[in-house]
Structures are given as structure tokens and as C-alpha cells.
């Protein structure tokens, strides 16, 4: 191996990672006791919770002001208009909640009666939320891992497509294998597919300095076209179908359900396990230390003998692989077929999730479950109230804005600003 050709990024004296929680106590503070630690955890939750509340409030405004009847009524009779607005918003958010968490009365009845059918019906919403949360956990971990090494992986969506393509291919081509061989192979294929798509921006950044943001975005579009191409041709297209739809994976490749009758599969515990694994990798392994060192201060990392180029490539590959698992987790479930647009933008939600979770695996899991709830509830909300599911995207963008600009939330809610120095910058333009 020759010297990595990665440029030595200009020494950047004021560059803590974006993820450095500004709410954290200054480094000079005495070691915290249990009480102060609890207070700190609660303190660090204040901004996320206010961000979520503010995001939902702005979503409510969007609902109201995109409804011509309510806007008209507000003009003629403000009081009645206000009533109609509150009614419309509470119906929308009510449908969202019952569609994603469930009806408490029904859950209580089901638990009391012990009847399997009513149990299924009562817990289906939660199951749907977890089904949606599963790929979001994987993809959120992918983006978070990148952030930790100072890489902005906007390409989780494309990597997710590649993971799905690889996994489905292995899922339908290999036949006659027992499940305990076929299923792991399929999962591995998803992992590899994402890794391949992550390798490209990694190696380009390491070798030529091409900024990963542009390359990963372009690879997203290439992945969409690639999927369109594959689904119209052999060996992917389903025999006898004129539509762009893939063959169905073998039963031996399917991930079993966690609880009979509900759609949530073993992918969900696997995602939690992966989060634990990423946490170990980042905070307890030598490799993870190198990742974070490169993210915090590439110049110092280079001086310490860390090969920056290799670390960048490896981070992008693992990040891509995690996103690939997200794609596989969507595919290798009960339906098991690939269609264009199978992902409602999980890879972009993942960016919001990584920011909301402050690039910590546990935070990512929590944020992914929240976004899973929003996503799962949006479809029943659209069915019940005709409010388009894209509302969720608007709400998400505001949540992330308030998270990314904690000073903004503090200004709005007049919270005292903690003493922090420096600015939150981790991407330093295109050159480095």
C-alpha cells in the first residue's frame, strides 16, 4: 500500500463534531453524581421534546392553512374558523395516533379477553410502527456512523436500494436451501449491496477528494434508474408480468414473524442488536476510536498515524452496509418483492433521525421509533382525513431544524443558554 492520497484537511481549531451536545456540561465540571447525571439526561431531552412539539405545531398550521374552507371560515367568522381548525387538526393527529399506536380501549379489551383476533387487531398499529421503524433504525445508524467520522452520507437511500436489490436477488435465485442457510445469506447480500454502493463515494473521496455529498446524491439517482432497469429485464422481472415488479423471494429466505399474526418480524430485534453493535464499534473498539478521531480532527488523527483514506473508505462501506440492511429489512419480509419506489424515503428520514438522535445509537433507535410512528400513522391519517402523508415530511423537517439550531429553540422558549464555546461545524466546504 502506498501512502493514502487523502489531503491533510486544514487544521481547524474550532471544529467540534456536529453531534457534540451543546447541553452537555463543560469539560471542567466535577465528575457527576447519579443525581446530576439524571438531571443532565433530562436536560438533554428538553430540546428534542420541544423540537417535536414545535414541529407538530407547525404541522397543524400547515393543515389549517392548506384547507380552503377553514381559511375562508377564519376570514368570515374567526371563532367558528378557530373551532373548525382545532377540530380538523385533532382529527388528523387523532387518526395518526390511533393508526400508529392504537386505540387504548381496544388494547385493554384485547388483553382482558385474550382473544387472538382482537389481540391482532389491537396491536396491529404498534406492529406497523415497528415495521416502519426497523429500516429507519438501520439507515439512521448508517448516517450516524458517517457523522461520527465527519462524513455526510446523503446516499443512504441509494445504498438501501442496492441492499434490497442484492437481497432479493439472493432471495429468489437460490432455491432448495434450508432457511438457516438461505436467510443469513440473504441478509449478508443486503449488507454487501449497501457496502458496494458506499465504497464508491468512500474511495472517490479518499483518492480524489470528491465531496461525498455530491457523489452520494448522484448515486441515489443512479440507484433509482438501476432499479427501474432491472425490474424491466430478466432475471429480476416476474415471469408473465408486464409491470416492473420482481420475482418473489423463496419462503426459506423470509424473516420469521416476531409474534404470529402481526407483521413485525425478527428484523426489529436484529436492528436493536445492530444498534448495540454500532455502539460497541464506535465507543469501545480501536477501529471506532479511529473513526471518531478522523471525524473530530483529521489533522491530529493523521499525525497519530491513523490512515485517513482507509478509515474514510471503511466508514463509508460500513455506513452503506447498514443502509443496505435497511433495504434488505424492507424486502425480506412477508411481501418479498421489489417494486419501484418501495422506500418512501427511508434514507432521507435517516438524516433527520441521525441528527435527532445526536448520532448516538440509542438516540437513533428512539428517533427511528418516533419517525416510524409518524410514518405508520400517516397512511391511516390520509385515509381518514384526506390530509396527504407528505405532512409528515414537513413536520420532520421542522423537528430537525429545531434540533440542528438548538439556539433557535432556546430563543423561542426563552431557555437560559448554557455556556458553550465554539461553533458547531463538522463539514468544511468542498475542498477538504
Amino acid at each position, binding site marked *: 500500500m502506498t501512502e493514502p492520497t487523502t489531503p491533510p484537511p486544514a487544521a481547524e481549531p474550532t471544529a467540534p463534531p456536529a453531534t457534540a451536545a451543546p447541553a452537555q456540561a463543560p469539560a471542567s465540571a466535577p465528575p457527576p453524581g447519579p443525581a446530576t447525571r439524571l438531571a443532565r439526561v433530562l436536560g438533554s431531552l428538553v430540546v428534542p421534546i420541544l423540537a417535536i412539539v414545535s414541529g407538530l405545531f407547525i404541522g397543524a398550521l400547515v393543515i389549517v392553512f392548506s384547507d380552503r374552507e377553514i381559511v375562508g371560515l377564519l376570514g368570515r367568522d374567526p371563532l367558528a374558523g378557530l373551532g373548525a381548525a382545532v377540530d380538523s387538526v385533532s382529527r388528523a393527529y387523532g387518526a395518526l395516533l390511533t393508526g400508529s399506536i392504537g386505540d387504548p380501549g381496544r388494547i385493554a379489551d384485547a388483553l382482558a379477553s385474550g382473544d387472538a383476533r382482537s389481540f391482532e387487531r389491537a396491536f396491529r398499529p404498534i406492529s406497523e410502527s415497528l415495521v416502519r421503524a426497523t429500516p429507519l433504525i438501520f439507515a439512521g445508524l448508517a448516517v450516524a456512523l458517517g457523522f461520527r467520522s465527519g462524513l455526510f452520507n446523503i446516499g443512504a437511500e441509494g445504498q438501501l436500494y442496492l441492499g434490497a436489490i442484492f437481497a432479493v436477488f439472493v432471495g429468489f435465485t437460490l432455491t432448495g436451501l434450508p432457511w438457516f442457510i438461505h436467510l443469513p445469506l440473504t441478509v449478508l447480500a443486503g449488507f454487501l449491496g449497501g457496502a458496494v454502493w458506499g465504497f464508491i463515494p468512500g474511495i472517490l473521496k479518499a483518492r480524489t477528494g470528491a465531496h461525498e455529498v455530491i457523489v452520494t446524491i448522484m448515486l441515489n439517482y443512479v440507484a433509482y*434508474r438501476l432499479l427501474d432497469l432491472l425490474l424491466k429485464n430478466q432475471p429480476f422481472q416476474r415471469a408473465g408480468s408486464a409491470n416492473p415488479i420482481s420475482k418473489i423471494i423463496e419462503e426459506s429466505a423470509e424473516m420469521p414473524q416476531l409474534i404470529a399474526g402481526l407483521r413485525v418480524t425478527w428484523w426489529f430485534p436484529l436492528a436493536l442488536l445492530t444498534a448495540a453493535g454500532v455502539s460497541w464499534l464506535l465507543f469501545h473498539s480501536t477501529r471506532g476510536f479511529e473513526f471518531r478521531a478522523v471525524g473530530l480532527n483529521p489533522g491530529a488523527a493523521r499525525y497519530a498515524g491513523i490512515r485517513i483514506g482507509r478509515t474514510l473508505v471503511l466508514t463509508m462501506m460500513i455506513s452503506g452496509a447498514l443502509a443496505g440492511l435497511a433495504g434488505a429489512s424492507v424486502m425480506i419480509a412477508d411481501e418479498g418483492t421489489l417494486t419501484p419506489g418501495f422506500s418512501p424515503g427511508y434514507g432521507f428520514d435517516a438524516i433527520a433521525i441521525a441528527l435527532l438522535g445526536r448520532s448516538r445509537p440509542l438516540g437513533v433507535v428512539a428517533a427511528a421509533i418516533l419517525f416510524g410512528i409518524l410514518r405508520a400513522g400517516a397512511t391511516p391519517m390520509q385515509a381518514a382525513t384526506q390530509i396527504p402523508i*407528505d405532512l409528515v415530511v414537513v413536520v420532520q423537517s421542522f423537528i430537525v431544524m429545531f434540533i440542528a439550531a438548538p439556539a433557535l429553540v432556546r430563543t423561542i422558549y426563552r431557555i437560559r443558554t448554557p455556556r458553550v464555546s465554539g461553533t458547531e461545524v463538522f463539514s468544511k466546504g468542498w475542498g477538504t
Partner: protein
Amino acid sequence: MGDVSVAAQARPVAIGPVTLRRHQVVGLFYIVLAAIMAVLAGGGVSAGASSTFDLNASGVAVQLPKLIVPSAGTAYVLSGLCAFVGAIQLVRGFGTRNGIAIGAVAFLAVAVFLVWAASGRSMNIVGVLQATVQRATPITLAGLSGVLCERAGVVNIAIEGMLLTGAFVAAVAGSAFGPWIGIAAAALSGGGLALVLAVLAIRYRVDQIIAGTIINIFALGITSFLSARVLTDVPELNNPDRLQPIAIPVLNDIPIVGPILFANNVFVYSMFILVGVLHFGLFHTRWGLRVRAVGEHPRAADTVGINVLGTRYRNVFLGGLIAGVGGASLVIGASGRFDREMTAGRGFIGLAAMIFGGWAPVGAFLASLVFGFADSLQARLSVLNVPIPSELLLMVPYLVTILVVAGLVGRARAPAADGRPYEKE
């Protein structure tokens, strides 16, 4: 950055016992490329077939004869030229004129491809070039928006979202109040998003790429939401008048060049003017000097009394206005309606054009022409039933972007303070 790529260029590559200098590796690559082109294109066309190139735009007075060439022969000759360039490169290299050699090889490769694609068919080259300029327009405007922001030290990745919002607002306001109001409203919507970016990036010092991504997510969500909730119910709001091309008398009658440059709509002309104005403004006026100082060394600029934050706010806002007009050009200048996610990454491609063009208006425009050409060629080829899957052709602009960013960003240099917030002491 630059010194490292120079080091990489000078590093010899060992292939077995032979050690090759970098220019020799490139020369070998050109020769191999020439061989591949000769085999695929020269051997791939049927014997005796000819390629026809139509040099006339539709409805012009002066008709030029069609250019008809034997497909196989032309492909071989062009491949031979490419091999010749490769041989010179292998023997002695082009030194400082390396860029010209790369350009020549790229031109020959495209020419061979066109000869192959037009074999046994007639391809209207003027039509392709006309579409190139039109399709390059939103990309150029996006690139100019990026130039304005980044020369002042603010990375604007939200151009995609500004294009999308501009397109949506242009469709709605254009349908309600006519195309000119539509364009103005689109510009203001882009400017509004730009102010949000500016406040987040300058006032709250949010990481600029994250702030831009947030705006992109918001723009995607709100335009999709409103088009599903409002435009599907009220289709009259998604039917603006399109601005028709205006032919400039006399100039329009020049063969080949006339129809390409002087028979366009207002967006194309304003893009030409804007490229000139921004080039002059950035490099030949006091304003431009100040902007560049803010982008290169804000502390020094501040010391001599330039208002750093004010300059940044102003430039980001101007950039937003331009991006908004770029979005309007997609609707009022081209499709005539808004569609969900219709920008399809043009804002990002515009950023790549800005990088490719070295953060300069003229450079960004020329780079956009490359993307416009790739885009218009794929559209033309799918009409001509060339036996390449349309999905592969659709990938071309994105692949070109990756190649360009990977190949050239190392040599172009971003403004030194690009992406860094400025804090007064």
C-alpha cells in the same frame, strides 16, 4: 489539497517489471479507449451503413445540406485520431496543455458515439444543441446561485429545494396571475428559503450542509403536500402560460448558431446576461472584490471595514432569487406544469457545475452545457430508438457529475472560508 494531487500525479505506477509515469498511463488509457471505440462503433454498425446529421433547425429560411458520412469509416478515422492523441501522450505527454488533450479525447469519444447512434438514421444535431442550451439553463442558474453564495463563504446545498419551491410557486402564481408574476413570485420564494438558510447558517451557525439538507427536506415535503392537497383539487392552479421562444431578427438566421443561441425563451437570454453580469461583477468591480474577500478571509475583510455578515446575507438572498427563477424556468419555460419532485437533482447537478467551473460564472455555465448536452442527447436517443435502455441513458447526467467531481474537484479550489461561520471577536 492541490499539493497532494500534484504528488499523486508524479507518482510512478509499477505494472509488473515496467514502471510507467502518470502521463504514460493516461496515454495507454486513451489508446485502449480508441481500440474499444473502433471495435464497438466501427465493427458494431452494419457494412455500408451511413450516418446522417441534419444541420437545420425546423422552420429556418436557409437550408444547409445534410451531413452524410459512412458510419464504419468515420468511426475508424475518429478512433484513429484518438489513438494518435494517446500515442503523443504516451511518448511525451502534453504537459500544461493536458486539458486540451482530455477535451479532444472526450470530443472524439462523443463523436464516435454519435456516428454509431446515427448509423442508418438521421439525427438532428442542431436540435440536440438547441435542447442542450435549454436544458442547461436551470442548471446554470443553480450553478450561478451556488457561485454567489460560496464566493461569500456560505455553502448552499439547498439550491435543489429552492428550485423545487420556485417551480411550485411559479406554477401556482403563474396560473393565477400570469407568467411574469409567476416568475417574480418564484424568485421571491427562492429568496425566502435563502433567508432561512442565511439565518440558520449565519445567525445560528448551524452546519451549512445540514441547514441546506433541512431546507431540501422541507421543500420536498411542502411542495408534495400542497400539490397533493391543493393542485389535485384545483387543476386550474397548475396550468400556467408558457413563455414562447423569441427569435432575435437577423442573428436568428445565421446557420447552426442562430437557432441554437438566438431563438430561445426569456429564461435562456436572461441566463446569458446573468452569466456576463456576474462575471463582470465578481471579477471587475469593487462589490466583487469585497464578496471574494469575505469568502476567502472574512477576518481580514472585517478588519478593513467590510460588513462580512451583511455581505453574506445579501449574497445568499441574491442566490436564492436566481435559484427561484431557475425553478420557474422548469415550469414556465419548459413543462408548463408542476410535478412532484420534478427537479430530479438539477440543483445538485448545478452545484457540481459550479465546482467543475471553478466557482466562476462562465465556468459554471460551460460546465452546465456538458450536463445539458448529456441530458438532451439521452432524450434524443430515446426518441431515435437507439438500442440502449432508456434507464441507462437517464443515468448519464448523474454519472457525468460523479466523474466531473471526482476528476476535477482536486484541482479547483474552493473559497478558503467556504462553509465556515464567521464570528466577530
